[in-house]
Structures are given as structure tokens and as C-alpha cells.
């Protein structure tokens, strides 16, 4: 029994060890990145409780996250002036309970009509909170936000990023375990039923509205917890944290990672956080790139990165990967050409317009040129068109190899079952 738990979860256990020990050797900047990733992971997993598990598309998840952050930072403020005592490690629970109460409230008023109507409702509620931020200045702190100082506990000052990192990482692991366990509870199972067939769920004794409301409550709890960690990490919360961009980002994380698998949002959170932090240093158009990445996934890979990985799992397990890898490399190379040209085009337009169309001399990919010339446009457009053409051709090759591999997979399946 012991050994089978270890083998089943070996990837998790190995990552846990890496995440715990490696950071002792990292810089503060890297630790900050990892801290943000941890928070994003909890936020994304909480979102997938709604989306992947229960089929609820929400455009307003920032409400739970942001308000959780606000309640936590106000609590921290009260601790700073001595009016409240909560040990710092337990502070995120303030945000969590705020999220829980908000979750059940929104759940009871908003989940009667699923699908697009629900999505609109969440969007409206998000905007309601966001615009009222400038009305309730005492709570939201107008444009500068609310700040507080982290308090020490049992000798740990939480002054260094390393200490904050460990706090976040411990909570991240707790949340991953709890959310995973939740999927196996009766409520977790029934939420899958509500996702697949809400009508029939009524006929097996469950009120779909009640199930959805409870799911929102659980999801709000974890989102609020993530918000609480955010407040502790940055010691500052502004009304942008209840904004629609925040909701859009968590949607991107979960969808790019893959909503159909438990680990999908984790992958998506890591990747999107990385893009948000590093890409913004290289180019001002990073938000556009993030959006394009999302669109590409929606159009061509709706099951996300997790979906793509799981699709190849049987191929990898049966060691048939070498059959398709060559055609993949060719296809990916043409993709690379398209992407490079596309990025070039966007960068040209971006650089030129950011000078107000006055200065057309710029440096892209380390090459200096004038955007008014013919060559830069010709090269980028040619790259996109030629890349596209070769991509289409290589795609048919990929499809051919895949069908050969699937035939092999099916025949191997038959061999196994007849033995």
C-alpha cells in the first residue's frame, strides 16, 4: 500500500522536494516570481472548480480574489495597530472566509441560469464591484490602494522574500491536496454530473442551483485564500485586483493549461505568470501576445496544454513517439517561422506607433532599420505567408503519421485484452 502511493504520486513528490529545497539557492527576484506562481496556482485551481469541474464559465473571479485580498490587508492593518491578533500564517484564512461568504451569496443569486447568462452575470457583478471601488474610498483606498506591514510570528519576521515564499508554498501544497480531495467527495462528484447533464441531476435528487451555489462557495474560499496570500506578499492591494483584467488572466491561465485535467490550471498558472513577468520586460505588446496565445489555444487546442500532453501519453507509454517526432519538428519549425514573423510585424507597428508615428527608425531582433522602408514589411509578410504554406503541408504529414500510430495503439490494445 505504501509503495503504490509513492509510485502513483511520484511526479508530485519529486516536484514538492524540488520546490522546497532549490529556492534556498535562489535570488530574491526568482523567489518573488515563484511566490507569484504559487498564488496564481491556488487562484487558477479555484477557478477550475467552477469551470472544469462544474462547467461554470465565470468572467468575474477577481471579485473573490480581490475582496479576499482587501479583507486580509485590512485585517493586517488592524494587527499593525494592535486591534487584532491573528498569527501571520493563518492570515490568508481571513481572505478565504470572505471568499466563502461572497461565493455562496453570488451562487444563490446568480446560478439559476447556466451558460452564457451566468457568464454575463459574473461580468456584471465584477464591474459592479470594480466601479464601486472609487465610491467606497475607505475600504478600497481609491487609486493608491490599501497597504499594511507583515507581522512576525514565533521569531520569524517574514521580512525576507524567502520566508514569505515558504509561507506561500506551504499554503499552495495544502490547497492542492484539499482541492484534489474535494473532487472525490460526493459534492465534487455531483458537480461533475451537473456539468454533464444538469437536467438529469434534478432527477437523481439534487437541486442544480444548490450544487452550483455550493461549488461557488468552495471556489470562492480558495480564491479568497489566494487573495489573502497576495495581500501578504505585496503588502498592498489596489482596486485593479478586483478588475476585469484579473478575471481575464485567471481564465487565460486555466484555459491555456487545460480545464479538463486537475493539473492543467497548475501548468497554465506557471506559464502565464512567467509570461506576465518576463515578457513585459522585453516588449510593451506583451498583453497582445498573451491574448494571441489564448486565441490560438481556443481555435486549435481547446483542451489546453494538459490535453495535448495527455493525448501523447499513450504514444509515449508505448514508445511510439519516434514515429511522429520528425513530422512534428518540421511542422513546429514552420510554426516558429510564422511566430517570428508575426512578432516582428507586431513589434514594428508597436514601436512606430509608440513614438506617435513620428520616428520610424527602430531596432527589432537586434537589427536597426526604418519602418518606412519596403523591406521590413516584405520580410515579415513573406515569413507569415510562406510559413503558413509550409505549415499546412507539414500538417498533412503529421496527420498521416498520427493515423498510423493510432492504428498501432488500437492493435496493441486488442493484444493486451485478448491475453
Amino acid at each position, binding site marked *: 500500500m505504501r509503495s503504490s502511493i509513492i509510485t502513483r504520486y511520484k511526479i508530485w513528490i519529486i516536484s514538492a522536494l524540488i520546490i522546497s529545497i532549490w529556492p534556498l539557492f535562489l535570488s530574491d527576484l526568482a523567489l518573488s516570481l515563484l511566490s507569484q506562481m504559487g498564488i496564481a496556482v491556488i487562484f487558477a485551481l479555484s477557478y477550475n472548480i467552477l469551470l472544469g469541474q462544474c462547467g461554470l464559465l465565470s468572467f468575474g473571479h477577481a471579485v473573490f480574489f480581490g475582496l479576499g485580498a482587501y479583507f486580509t490587508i485590512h485585517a493586517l492593518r488592524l494587527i499593525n495597530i494592535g486591534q487584532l491578533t491573528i498569527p501571520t500564517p493563518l492570515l490568508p484564512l481571513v481572505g478565504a472566509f470572505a471568499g466563502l461568504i461572497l461565493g455562496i451569496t453570488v451562487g444563490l443569486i446568480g446560478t*439559476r*441560469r447556466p451558460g*452564457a*447568462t451566468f457568464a454575463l452575470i459574473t461580468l*456584471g457583478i465584477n464591474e459592479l464591484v470594480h*466601479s464601486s471601488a472609487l*465610491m467606497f474610498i475607505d475600504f478600497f483606498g481609491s487609486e493608491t490602494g490599501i497597504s499594511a506591514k507583515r507581522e512576525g510570528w514565533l521569531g520569524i519576521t517574514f521580512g525576507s522574500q524567502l520566508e514569505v515564499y515558504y509561507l506561500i508554498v506551504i499554503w499552495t501544497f495544502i490547497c492542492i491536496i484539499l482541492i484534489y480531495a474535494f473532487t472525490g467527495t460526493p459534492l465534487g462528484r455531483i458537480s461533475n454530473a451537473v456539468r454533464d447533464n444538469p437536467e438529469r441531476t434534478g432527477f437523481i435528487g439534487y437541486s442544480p442551483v444548490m450544487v452550483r451555489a455550493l461549488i461557488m462557495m468552495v471556489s470562492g474560499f480558495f480564491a479568497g485564500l489566494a487573495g489573502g496570500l497576495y495581500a501578504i506578499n505585496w503588502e498592498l492591494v489596489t482596486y485593479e485586483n478586483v478588475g476585469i483584467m484579473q478575471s481575464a488572466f485567471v481564465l487565460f491561465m486555466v484555459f491555456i493549461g487545460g480545464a479538463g485535467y486537475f493539473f492543467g490550471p497548475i501548468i497554465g498558472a506557471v506559464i502565464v505568470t512567467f509570461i506576465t513577468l518576463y515578457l513585459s520586460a522585453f516588449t510593451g*505588446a506583451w498583453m497582445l501576445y498573451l491574448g494571441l496565445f489564448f486565441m490560438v489555444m481556443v481555435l486549435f487546442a481547446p483542451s489546453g496544454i494538459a490535453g495535448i500532453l495527455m493525448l501523447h501519453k499513450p504514444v509515449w507509454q508505448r514508445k511510439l513517439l519516434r514515429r511522429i517526432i520528425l513530422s512534428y519538428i518540421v511542422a513546429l519549425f514552420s510554426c516558429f517561422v510564422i511566430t517570428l514573423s508575426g512578432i516582428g510585424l507586431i513589434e514594428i507597428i508597436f514601436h512606430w506607433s509608440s513614438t506617435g508615428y513620428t520616428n520610424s527608425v527602430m531596432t527589432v531582433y537586434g537589427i536597426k532599420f526604418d519602418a518606412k522602408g519596403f523591406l521590413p514589411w516584405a520580410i515579415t509578410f513573406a515569413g507569415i505567408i510562406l510559413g503558413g504554406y509550409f505549415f499546412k503541408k507539414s500538417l498533412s504529414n503529421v496527420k498521416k503519421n498520427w493515423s498510423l500510430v493510432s492504428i498501432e495503439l488500437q492493435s496493441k490494445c486488442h493484444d493486451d485484452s485478448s491475453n
Partner: protein
Amino acid sequence: MIEFFIGSLLNGISFGLLLFMLSSGLTLIFGMMGVLNFAHASFYMVGAYVAYQFSAFAGFYPALIISVSIVGFLGAMVERFGLRHVHKHGHMAELLFTFGLAYLTVEMVKMVWGKLPVDYRIPHTLDFTLFNIFGTTVHAYKAFMMLITIIMLISLYMLIKSTRVGIIIQAALSNPVMVGELGHNVPLIFMSIFAIGCAMAGLAGGISGNLFSTEPGMADRLGLIVFVVVIVGGLGSITGALVASILIGIIMNFAAAINYSLADLISFLGIASSKKGILAIKISQTAEVLPFLLMVLILILRPKGLMGTRET
């Protein structure tokens, strides 16, 4: 007092008509294709920006026509190459596609035209006071806006109710498969409806961008209110959209003109109160938030909306 009333009423109705122009297109597309187009307000925004760009060298009126044509064409392309492809992945994918499109449009507009508002102006030919009524001035351009909106809506109504094309559209609205079996090109009809809806949004942008400020946030600002209109009016109902549009337009404009707060009201009644906190918020400050409050109220009291019919 009466100037305040008439002024706000006129502003409310003209804004409401604009909202209706957008929400009717949205409702039409939703009723036809079952897709809630999150990017609807994006076409509104593109309409305003394109009209601005062309008005610089072509003049206001030609720019308007060019803008509407371009936006309609873009709508057709989005339907043909985007929506149609995503349709087979299900409803969720369609919603996400339009949401992603909305996000991308804002980013692309920011990239090409920058983050600050652009100087899209009211044409000189219409920049005067039309007449005075009960002490309020009615600006010629606003009258022009209302006129165009009403003409547009009447033409659309007549197109759908009285022409042969319109009858086919009505049929496709309730049973697209059957209409296809009867030999009509249903994909073409879908594409045309989508293009018309987007063109209407573009027209709305072209005629109001110069009045309300043309900047990257305009799609979100107006788009959210349009969604509230659609929820309050009831998803799928055009009459509901009309009622809700006018209602919300009037509420917002009346509120924006009231520069008093609850605290002022209380002291007017002779009761002393601390002028702090929630009581000190002026009604005019709440104007932006009121549509969403109305939405939450409707959700609690009458979840189907005022005249809700169709479900997703």
C-alpha cells in the same frame, strides 16, 4: 428644474437609443446563432476609430460610410473564419472565442492608435444649437445621432418584417436546418446577419465616438452596459432590449445630473448627520454603477429579465 428634467430625458433617450442599436444587434445574433458575442462592443469601437481615421482626409460623412462597410466586412470575416471553425468545439469555445476577440481588439487598437483618446470631432456642419426647448438647448449633432439611429432601426425592422430576405431570416431564426433543406444558403444567411449586426455596432461607434470620446476603454465601458441591457430586458427579446435600453439610458442620465448626496437629502429634511461615508456619495457618482445594481436586482426579483424568452 424643468430644464433638468427635459435635458436629462432627452439625453437619456438618445443614449438609450444608442444602447438599443447595440443591444438589438447583439440580440439578433444571439437569437439567430445562439452565440453571445462578447466582442460586439469591439466592433463599435473599431467603427469609431476607423471613422476617425478616414474623417481626417475624406470628411465626416464619407468616413462614416467607409467605416460601416469595413466593420461589416470584418464581421463577415470573423464569422466565416473564426466562429464557424469554433462552433464545432461547442458553446463554451464560442463564448471564449468572442471573449478573446474582445480582449485582442482592445490590445490591437491600443497598439495602433495608442492608449490616449483620439481627437475625433463633431463635423462643423452639425456643430450648432438646433433649438431651445423649455430652457434646455438641443444640439444639432445629438439630433442627427437620434435621427440616424431611428432610421437605422426602422430600416432593419422593415427589412426583417416585410421583405423576402427578411422572411427567410425569420425562418432561419427558428429553424435553420429546415431553411437549409429548402435550398437557402444558411451559412451565407448567418454570415450576413452577423455582418449586419456588426455593421450596426460600427455605425453606432462612428456616430457617437466623437461625442463620447474615442479611446481604448470605450468598448468595455459601453459593452458592459449593453450586456446589462440584454440581461435586464431578457435574453433573446428585442422588445425587452428596447425597454431596458431606454430605461437604463434615462436612469443613468438622470442620476448623472443629480449633484446631491443622501447626506444632502437628510439635512434638507432638517436632520443633522455626519457628512461622511456612504451618505456623502453624490448620486452623480453612482451613475456608472446603477446599471449593474439594476441587473442584480432583476436577477433576484425576476431572473428571466423583463421580457425574457429564449434560453441558451
